[in-house]
């Protein structure tokens, strides 16, 4: 058992770190301040293949794996959690779903442009009345000749409006509960498919979070993803994968905050000494570091299970729960160690603390993670 990154991973990590420092970090504050989607960064990530990291070269992907992708989300989220989630939602939830559940024709048509850098993806499951209770879906799809007619609303959809391709879920048989849910692929621009306003959020403010509105939206029959009535399984397994991305994002937020606070405590002087000279500061930093490293191994474990094609649902849940808690814990302490300066926007830990919270909520709340882990224990 070797816990160190081998050469190719170490070099990829360095690439992501350099990219994050040079291209992403300079925009992070402004993107947050103006709730602005960083289109130019997405274009650069497309140019350098970041949107196709774990996908096969035969579809235009990079031919790397989930661990590499997790390293990318982590390094980028260290400086900008907004950019991290754009990458994660695209890769895990949209491209990943089509990669894992799509037919060969669907992969050629929809996956290829997503992973070769021409299109961006999104995923729509949540509804006003259906969050954790996915079976409460109101959106419905009715077959009419060779077309599915979709009606309903999805809310809180990451990348909505900016993305070109959407994996969404709708009831094809309301009476069947979770067995009546079906997944579909829908492209932006399809008549009857529109977007609501961009939500104003506590954190990850530059990411687009909008409603998807379907009014008698007609799509060809062959844009059904997976099988009719099997959409719940598509959603759950896709979210298992997505949690690795969110866990990596949380890990990045925590790592970024730790970097900032370590630099700050060496400079900030009180009582004639840098505050790093006080044992309270030293012990807090040590606690933060230990928590961060513990979370890191859970995240990398989940990613490597994915790469070995092993079951990783429980590992992904543990990784997301731990890493998101660590993100909130570390950013909170980072603000505390900054004192009053930590509470104002000039210091990045303020943004990082706001960004951290969402990782405990989206793609399954911490409570859902506990359900997944305990269910496996008691099975």
């Amino acid at each position, binding site marked *: 058992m070797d816990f160190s990154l081998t050469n*190719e991973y170490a*070099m*990829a990590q360095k*690439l992501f770190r350099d990219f994050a420092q040079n291209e992403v970090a300079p925009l992070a504050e402004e993107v947050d301040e103006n709730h602005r989607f960083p289109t130019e960064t997405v274009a650069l990530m497309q140019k350098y*293949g970041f949107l196709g*990291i774990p996908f096969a070269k035969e579809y235009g992907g990079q031919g*790397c794996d989930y661990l590499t992708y997790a390293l990318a989300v982590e390094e980028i989220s260290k400086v900008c959690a907004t950019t991290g989630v754009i990458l994660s939602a695209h890769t895990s939830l949209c491209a990943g779903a089509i990669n894992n559940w799509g037919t060969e024709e669907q992969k050629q048509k929809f996956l290829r442009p997503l992973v070769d850098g021409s299109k961006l993806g999104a995923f729509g499951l949540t509804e006003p009345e259906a969050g954790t209770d996915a079976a409460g879906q109101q959106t419905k799809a009715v077959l009419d000749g060779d077309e599915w007619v979709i009606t309903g609303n999805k809310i809180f959809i990451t990348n909505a409006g900016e993305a070109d391709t959407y994996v969404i879920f709708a009831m094809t048989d309301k009476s069947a509960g979770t067995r009546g849910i079906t997944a579909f692929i829908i492209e932006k621009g399809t008549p009857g498919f529109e977007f609501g306003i961009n939500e104003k959020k506590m954190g990850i403010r530059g990411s687009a979070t909008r409603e998807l509105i379907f009014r008698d939206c007609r799509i060809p029959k062959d844009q059904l993803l997976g099988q009719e009535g099997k959409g719940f399984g598509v959603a759950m397994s896709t979210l298992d994968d997505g949690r690795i991305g969110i866990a990596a994002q949380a890990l990045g937020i925590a790592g970024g905050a730790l970097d900032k606070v370590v630099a700050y405590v060496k400079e900030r002087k009180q009582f004639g000494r840098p505050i790093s000279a006080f044992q309270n500061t030293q012990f807090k930093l040590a606690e933060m570091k230990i928590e961060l490293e513990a979370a890191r191994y859970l995240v990398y474990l989940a990613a490597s299970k994915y790469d070995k094609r092993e079951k990783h649902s429980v590992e992904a849940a543990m990784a997301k729960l731990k890493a998101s808690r660590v993100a909130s814990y570390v950013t909170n302490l980072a603000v505390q160690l900054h004192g009053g300066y930590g509470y104002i926007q000039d210091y990045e830990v303020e943004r990082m603390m706001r960004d951290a919270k969402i990782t405990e909520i989206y793609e399954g709340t911490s409570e859902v993670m506990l359900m997944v882990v305990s269910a496996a224990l008691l099975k």
Partner: protein
Amino acid sequence: MKIIVCIKQVPDTTEVRLDPKTGTLIREGVPSIMNPDDKSGLEAALRLKDEHGAHVSVISMGPPQAKEMLREALAMGADEAYLVTDRAFAASDTWATSSILAAAISKLDYDLIITGRQAIDGDTAQVGPEMAEHLGIPNVSYAEEIQLEEGSILVKRQFEDFSHMVRAKFPALITALGELNTPRYMTPGAIFDAWRNKEITEWNRADVPVEDSNIGYRGSPTRVAKSFPKTMKSPGMKIEEGVEESVEFILDKLKEKYLL
């Protein structure tokens, strides 16, 4: 078109730390990078490849650790990589280095050789032009813009306050300035390929057709008489107040330093 780019692994620092005993650079604990001018040279080659089609080889002389930098060059888009390495080549000055590299390159086909202007660890700017002399090909140094023509290259050569436009027939050598371009990032997939699917050709002493009298410490006519770190002067201060305030300020400063 075949392009060879010479790249060097250098310590990632502009702070020169010297061993006071030997007068040589201390490299331990300093991360290594591809020399910035060389990276611009590689980028120039890769742009010619993107626009006109070309086979790009990279070559480096150095210790086995330089392979990592060669993999980085492959991950940026180079097609082939060569490492010229042997203990016999250690302690070579620019004459010996250029003799060894020219001899190694003479085994390859090329239309264009690109080197960086100079390396940030030695700052000599001699190896590129010396290689051109050894190989008997035209050399254009300080390239800030290049343009491919039929069988030749048009180079904007930088001087202090003017430029030359120089046309060189292939085969030719140019030395690249950092200003030539902004080098691209690697791509994740190319990094995996560079480590998993590509080989670096290693050439040792016996593979390089060069005279013993031109390699290593013995083949190096340069002798470093003395090395010493620069002592930095503290920056001055400009006072732009009225006469009286300025005088008062200066007196205060002098008192502060116990000079009055």
